[in-house]
C-alpha cells in the first residue's frame, strides 16, 4: 500500500450524530475496540513552541517511515498539544516505554522508526541531559522537569490530537457531560463545584461555584457563559497551550457550566495572536456541533447551548472582565464601573459568568474524579468556606534565567523553591538567584527569603505579590530591579486603556521617575514620589489594571530598596544593566585574541595582539552594546559600576 500523508481535516458530515449518553458510550467503545491495544503511541508535540522547530514535518516523516516499515498496526503517531518543555522542542514521547526524545528533527525519523520503534533500541543522542547532574534521562519521568510535576490538566492534551474529536472521546471525553445531563440537576453541579474549592485561575481567585450561584440566581432573560482566553501577561502561555492542545476539555467545561447556570449562549474571547488556538478551537466546536454535543438538544436532551469564538485585537486590558464584555459587544475595550457585578449585569446587561480557560478546564475533571479527589490536592480547608484554601493544580509558565523553562503543572501549595529549583533546575550558568516575578504586571517580585513560600492564592498575596494567572519570571544576579520595574511600567502605560487620569498619567509619570533613576538622574525625592504616586494610581483607578499596576514598583521598593538607593547615591547598578551607570573595561586576563576588537561595531577597541593588558576600550566611542563582553572567551571584560567605574 502507498504511504500518503494523513488527512488532517475531518469531513464533518461523516461524524456520527449522538442522541444520548448511551450513544456516546457505544461510540467510545467502538473507537477503543478499533485499535490494537498493544500498539505503541508516539506522542509528537505540535504546540506552538515545537512548531517553531518544525514538528509538523517531523510527525509527517514519522508517519511516512512507520508506513514504509509496515508498522501501522503496531504504532500510532499522534500529533498532540503542548508537552510543556518548549525549550527542548521538537519533543516526542514513545509509550508505553515513556522514552522521551528532545530536539528531534525530521531527519531523525528514519532512525527512530528503525531502531526504537522496530527494535526497542534507545537513541542516545536524542535523550535529555540534565544540565544540573549531567545525567542522561531515558524516560520522561527521569527528567526532573517532569518528575516533580503533577500534570492533571495538561496530561490529556499530551495524549491526543486536538483536531480529532475521536481522540478526546476515546479518552473518556464528554463523559462528565453525560454524567451531568443524565444524573444531576444544575444546583447539584454548582454545589459540587463550590465544595471542590475551585477558584478562578485568571488570578482573581474568586470561588467558581459562588460565582455560578450568583449568576444563576440573578434576574435576566438570557444568561451568558464566557471563557476568557485573552491571556496577555508577558511570558505567560498557559491558557494558549490548553486551548491549542485540548480544546474539547474547555468546551466540555463550558457546556457543564452553562447547564448548571441555565445559559444557552457561550463565548470564547481569544486573542487573535493565538492563531493555532483559534484554529483548533474552531475545529473542535464544529466537530462537537456535528456530533450533537453542542447546539440544539445536546445528546438528545432538552438542553441547548452553543459557543461562539470572538477574536480579540490584542489589547491587554481586554482580559479585564468588563473591558472584555465591552469588546464582545463591539465597543472599544474599556472597563466599566462594576458597582453592579457582571455576574448580575454583564454582557448586554444580562447575567454573565466569565471564567478563565484553566478554570473551565478543571470542571470536567472535578465532575469525573469527584470533589474529594480535587480537595485532596492543594492547601487549606474549603469544606466550610470556599475562600478557605486553594485546591487542585495550577499551571505555571516558568521562564527567565532557569535551566529548564516551559509550562509546569504543580499542586497548589508547591513552594517557589520546588518550582524553580526542583523542576526548573535552578539558575542558569551557575549564577545566583535574585528574585521571581509572579502574577505578571499586576504581581510583584519576591527575593530569596520567600523561596519556601507555598504558591497559592493567599500566601503570595501576604508576601506582597500574587499568584495571578501563572506567569513566573525568574531573575538572576544580572538583573537590575529598577530596570525591571521600569519594564513593567512601560508595558502598562502602553496597555492601559487610558481612561482614568490616575492610570494613564500616573503610570507615565512613574515610568519617567524610574527612567530618571536608571539613567542616573534620580534623587531621594524620586523614591518618595514613586511611593506617593503609587497610592494615587492604585486607589484612584477604576479597574484591576490600574489598581494593581504599581505592584512591581512597590514590591521592588520593599525588597530591593538598596538597589534604588545604589542608583541614586552611588550611581551604581549592581545588576550591571543601566547603561548610563556602567562602563566596560578589559582586564589583565586578556589573551590578546583580538576577537572583541573585531566584533565591536563602533571600533572602540584597539590593542596589540598579545597577552596582557594591551587592549583598551575607548569610552567615548563605546555604546555599551555588550558584544565584546559576550564574545570574550577569557572573561577578560569587566563591567564596572558606581564607585568602581
Amino acid at each position, binding site marked *: 500500500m502507498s504511504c500518503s500523508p494523513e488527512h488532517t481535516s475531518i469531513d464533518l458530515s461523516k461524524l456520527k450524530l449522538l442522541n444520548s449518553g448511551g450513544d456516546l458510550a457505544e461510540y467510545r467503545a467502538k473507537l477503543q475496540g478499533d485499535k490494537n491495544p498493544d500498539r505503541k503511541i508516539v506522542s509528537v508535540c505540535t504546540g506552538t513552541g515545537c512548531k517553531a522547530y518544525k514538528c509538523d514535518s517531523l510527525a509527517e516523516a514519522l508517519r511516512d517511515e512507520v508506513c514504509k516499515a509496515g508498522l501501522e498496526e503496531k504504532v500510532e503517531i499522534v500529533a498532540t498539544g503542548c508537552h510543556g518543555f518548549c525549550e527542548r522542542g521538537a519533543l516526542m514521547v514513545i509509550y508505553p516505554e515513556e522514552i522521551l526524545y528532545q530536539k528531534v528533527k525530521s531527519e531523525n525519523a528514519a532512525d527512530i522508526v528503525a531502531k526504537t520503534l522496530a527494535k526497542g533500541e534507545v537513541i542516545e543522542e536524542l535523550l535529555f541531559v540534565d544540565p544540573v547532574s549531567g545525567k542522561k534521562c531515558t524516560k520522561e519521568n527521569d527528567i526532573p522537569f517532569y518528575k516533580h510535576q503533577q500534570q492533571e490538566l495538561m496530561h490529556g492534551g499530551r495524549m491526543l490530537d486536538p483536531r480529532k474529536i475521536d481522540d478526546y472521546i476515546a479518552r473518556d471525553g464528554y463523559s462528565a457531560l453525560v454524567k451531568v445531563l443524565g444524573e444531576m440537576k444544575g444546583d447539584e453541579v454548582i454545589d459540587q463545584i463550590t465544595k471542590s474549592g475551585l477558584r478562578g485561575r485568571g488570578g482573581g481567585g474568586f470561588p467558581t461555584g459562588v460565582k455560578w450561584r450568583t449568576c444563576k440566581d440573578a434576574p435576566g432573560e438570557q444568561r451568558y457563559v464566557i471563557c476568557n482566553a485573552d491571556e496577555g501577561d508577558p511570558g505567560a502561555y498557559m491558557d494558549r497551550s490548553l486551548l491549542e492542545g485540548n480544546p474539547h476539555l474547555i468546551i466540555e467545561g463550558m457546556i457543564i457550566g452553562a447547564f448548571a447556570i441555565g445559559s444557552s449562549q457561550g463565548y470564547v474571547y481569544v486573542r487573535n495572536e493565538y492563531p493555532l488556538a483559534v484554529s483548533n478551537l474552531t475545529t473542535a466546536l464544529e466537530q462537537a456541533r456535528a456530533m450533537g454535543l453542542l447546539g440544539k438538544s445536546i445528546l438528545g436532551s432538552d438542553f441547548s447551548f452553543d459557543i461562539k469564538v470572538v477574536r480579540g485585537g490584542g489589547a491587554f486590558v481586554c482580559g479585564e472582565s468588563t473591558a472584555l464584555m465591552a469588546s464582545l459587544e463591539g465597543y472599544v475595550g474599556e472597563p466599566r464601573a462594576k*458597582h453592579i457585578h457582571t455576574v448580575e449585569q454583564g454582557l448586554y446587561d444580562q447575567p454573565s459568568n466569565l471564567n478563565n480557560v484553566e478554570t473551565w478546564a478543571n470542571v470536567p475533571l472535578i465532575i469525573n474524579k469527584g470533589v474529594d479527589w480535587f480537595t485532596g490536592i492543594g492547601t487549606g480547608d474549603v469544606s466550610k468556606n470556599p475562600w478557605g484554601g486553594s485546591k487542585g493544580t495550577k499551571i505555571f509558565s516558568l521562564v527567565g534565567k532557569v535551566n529548564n523553562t516551559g509550562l509546569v503543572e504543580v499542586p497548589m501549595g508547591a513552594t517557589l523553591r520546588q518550582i524553580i529549583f526542583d523542576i526548573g533546575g535552578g539558575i542558569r550558568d551557575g549564577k545566583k538567584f535574585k528574585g521571581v516575578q509572579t502574577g505578571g504586571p499586576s504581581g510583584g517580585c519576591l527575593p530569596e527569603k520567600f523561596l519556601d513560600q507555598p504558591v497559592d492564592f493567599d500566601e503570595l498575596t501576604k508576601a506582597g505579590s500574587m499568584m495571578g494567572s501563572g506567569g513566573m519570571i525568574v531573575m538572576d544576579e544580572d538583573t537590575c530591579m529598577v530596570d525591571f520595574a521600569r519594564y513593567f511600567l512601560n508595558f502598562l502605560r502602553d496597555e492601559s486603556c487610558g481612561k482614568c487620569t490616575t492610570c494613564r498619567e500616573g*503610570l507615565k509619570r512613574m515610568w519617567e521617575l524610574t527612567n530618571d533613576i536608571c539613567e542616573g538622574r534620580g534623587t531621594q525625592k524620586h523614591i518618595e514620589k514613586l511611593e506617593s504616586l503609587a497610592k*494615587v494610581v492604585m486607589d*484612584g483607578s477604576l479597574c484591576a489594571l490600574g489598581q494593581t499596576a504599581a505592584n512591581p514598583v512597590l514590591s521592588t521598593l520593599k525588597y530591593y530598596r538598596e538597589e534604588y538607593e545604589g542608583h541614586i547615591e552611588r550611581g551604581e547598578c549592581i545588576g550591571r544593566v543601566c547603561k548610563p551607570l556602567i562602563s566596560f573595561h578589559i582586564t589583565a586576563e586578556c589573551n590578546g585574541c583580538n576577537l572583541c576588537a573585531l566584533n565591536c561595531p563602533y571600533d572602540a577597541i584597539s590593542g596589540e595582539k598579545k597577552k596582557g593588558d594591551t587592549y583598551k576600550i575607548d569610552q567615548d566611542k563605546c555604546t555599551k552594546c555588550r558584544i565584546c563582553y559576550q564574545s570574550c572567551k577569557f572573561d577578560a571584560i569587566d563591567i564596572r559600576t558606581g564607585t568602581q567605574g
Partner: protein
Amino acid sequence: MIDIVIDGKTIQAEQGASLLQTALDNGIDIPHLCYHPAVEAYGACRLCLVEVTAESHGRKKTKLTTSCNYPVLPGIEVVTDSENIRENRKGVLELLIARAPKAKRVRELAAEYGVDAQAYPVSGEECILCGLCIQVCKDVMGVEALGFIGRGDKKDVGTPFDDLSKECIGCASCASVCPTQCIEVIDTADTRELPRWRAIHKLVRCRICGKAVATEKHLAHLKKTVNMDEDVRSVCPTCRREFYAKQAMAEGHM
C-alpha cells in the same frame, strides 16, 4: 426616594441616581471635571473621589470610588472630604496640571488643593481626555464626529484619521462642554472654524438682523431632527423670539 447619608446628613435621593449629582443638588460640593448632567457619567478624570461604605456579603466595606458613576443605593454612607480623599484628589490634580497647565479650571482646583504645579515635567497638552466632547456629540447631538484614538499614554481625541470629519456639523457643542476650553471656535463673517477638528463650516446669517445663526450643516441637521419651520430655522434666537411674539400678537393670543 430613599435615604442615604452624606457627610453625616441624611438625604433623600432617587435610587440609581448619580451620587455626585445628588450631592451637588444638596449643596455639597465635590470637585469634578468630566461630569456633565446631560450625558452618562464616564468617570475619567477621577477627581470626584469619595468614600462609600456599603454592605457586601453581610460585611460593611468602605472604599474610595468616583461619585459621578456611583449609583445611589439603599443604606450607603458617603464621606466627601477626608484626609485620604484630599490626598488622592491632590495626586490627581498634580497629574492633571502637569498635563494641562493652561486650563483655567484645573489651575483653580490646583490652587484650592495647594497642589505643586511643578510636581512633574509639564507636557503642555490642553485636553484632559475627559471624553465630554465625544459624548455630547454622540449622545446629545446624535452625530458621532469624534472619538478616542489609541490607548494608554498615547490616547487622544479626534476625528477619523485626524481629517475633516464628514459627520461634523460645526454645532460647537463640543466646545461648549469642554472643561478645559481647549476646543477653539473661530467665527468670521461667513465661516466657522474648529481648528482642533480641522473643520471649516459655512455660517448662515440671520435673514433679519444679519447675526450668525448656525452653520449650514447644523441647520440641515436640525431640519432632520427638529420639527421647525424653514422660515424660523434660518433666523437667530433673538429675531426668532420677536417673530413668534409678533405672530402671537397678530393671532390675538396676547
